[in-house]
């Protein structure tokens, strides 16, 4: 049952992502993106990462998508104007190598030589102590430094948004 659902949501995620890229109307594109996010959240939930799944819905499907839709409405976008994709040579090159990559991926899956290694928190252990606790524990002990670094990234991102978004530069002093 879980496997069937996984495939279902996987296919849904891919189809809606394609719909997002190919649809001409930005509002539809945004809605397709919501579907992608929800499918991903469902996949997380099916794999036992309930906390991630809820965060995915809250942050991406909730907050970020609302911002997207707001911006789309404020900008009053029409149907997008498509530019030609590129030189024919580029397209042929891209298609050939894309297909090659796809076939390679299929071969890897078929070869069956895929094996993973379990980390410190396999599914059984997580089910006992709970997702949030496991994540919080790791985040504030082992991964403390990466966690703090992420705040620097956010700070830099905010500075960038302000600088590039500011209408006028202050006068030269």
């Amino acid at each position, binding site marked *: 049952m879980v496997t069937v659902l996984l495939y279902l949501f996987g296919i849904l995620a891919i189809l809606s992502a394609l719909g997002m890229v190919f649809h001409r109307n930005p509002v539809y594109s945004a809605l397709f993106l919501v579907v992608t996010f929800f499918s991903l959240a469902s996949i997380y939930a099916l794999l036992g990462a309930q906390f991630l799944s809820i965060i995915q819905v809250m942050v991406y499907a909730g907050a970020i998508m609302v911002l997207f839709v707001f911006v789309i409405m404020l900008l009053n976008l029409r149907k997008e104007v498509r530019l030609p994709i590129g030189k024919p040579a580029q397209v042929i090159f891209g298609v050939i190598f894309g297909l090659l990559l796809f076939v390679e991926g299929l071969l890897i899956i078929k070869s069956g*030589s895929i094996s*993973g290694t379990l980390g410190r928190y396999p599914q059984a252990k997580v089910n006992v102590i709970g997702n949030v606790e496991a994540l919080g524990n790791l985040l504030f*002990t082992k991964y403390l*430094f990466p966690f703090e*670094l992420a705040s620097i990234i956010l700070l830099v991102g905010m500075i960038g948004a302000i*600088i590039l978004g500011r209408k006028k*530069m202050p006068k030269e002093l």
Partner: protein
Amino acid sequence: MDLIIPQINFSAIAPALTVMITAVVVLLIGLFFQKVQRELLAIVGIIGLIVSLGELGRMWGKDITGFGGMVGNDNFTIAFQMIFIIAAFLAALLSLNRIEDEYVSYGEFYGLLLFALSGIIVMVQGLNLLIVFLGLEILSISLYILTGFRKMRADSIEAALKYFLLGAFSTGFLLYGIALIYGTTGSFSFKGISSYVNANGFTNVLFVAGIILFLVGLAFKAAFVPFHQWTPDVYQGAPTPIAAFMSVGAKGAAFAVLIRLFVSVAAFSTREWTIAIWVLALLTMTIGNVVAIVQQNIKRMLAYSSIAHAGYILVGVLAGNEMGRSAVLFYLMAYTFMNLGAFGVVSYLGISHKVENLRIESYRGIGYKYPFAALAMAVFMFSLAGVPPTAGFIGKFYLFSAALKAGFVWLVILSVLNAVISAYYYLRVVVAMYMQEPEEGKVFELPAASWGVGLALLLAVLGVLYMGIFPSSLMQLFQKTAELISML
């Protein structure tokens, strides 16, 4: 459930922390004291850089680790960090140039430059792919913004957007690679990956795919061919001091991670990987050099030349021995001086009376009108081409002899041929400066140079000549670091 907090040891991240704090201080000074001169901001930043250099000096030889083995500083890493701090120091001085007045928010400018540096430092000292990734993101995001800093200009915005889109795409590759590596090895740390490879080799296809994706992401940041397409446009559109910093910082950081990966995973010396890096090195330098010949814009020419130099450094990485590693450090140091110097002269001569002098033709005859700038440019061009007695010659000599020692005879022959090709376009600039008449009968007028640019160029010239004439002391120092390189 008990929380076991690993040993934190702030002294392990002291240099990065100093740079980050300085960045915030500079940002706040720029915000609250709008009247403040940009010289003051640059000086505050430079003080922070000197303090963090001092901290690195204190850490020398002590192999300090922190955060439960997340970060570590062996001498090799410390040497890398010092080179990047010197690069940021020169870039900060160069951006005092009065001519490039177009970016006005100097607090943010210097703040972001320092943040970019802190990202590089974190990336270099990371013993864990997660740290490497986060450091790379801090670096990249800062550079995207700095590239678009002259936002009234179309080429700057175009460069920033191009860099951002392609950079985000390549970050996706890198992250996917890290995810696959983690999924197969169960570890983010170089140590864990190494012990996995020692036990299993490269039998797991997913693991190999992960490593390849990771290398592609790094290759993009270091602009190896065929991942180099963004470089000329971005260097052309970015403010010149930032392009200079990018050419050393972003590239060098990728090299540091690459060497760390190759040293910790000994199995990379197998035939398949060697061939891949061999081809990558040859393609990178050949295409960089050949395309540089036809460039008319000096910033684009320097961009292609920086691609070619990444190819030379890759030869040293490929050598894989201690000599190769110390040669990489030496070359990176030399490259910092000569490339930042060359970009510095370009920045100084850049814009006069709103007219850009970025074509190589516009350098005609400046040798007599601006003797000091032209002399400095000539020194940098000779060094980039690898003419003795400059640092570029000695650096190439060390790199190629390390590769010879490791048995890569054909690659060395082709690299030397490449260096010969490159002499053509470097010397073209020198010929234009000294042996050709100015285009419209007279040379353009420039306002006086600011002290910052003068000091930076002086330091760069001295660095190039010192490393070219007395290379042994520095080389001995770097050799010690290469012997000591440990996984901590």
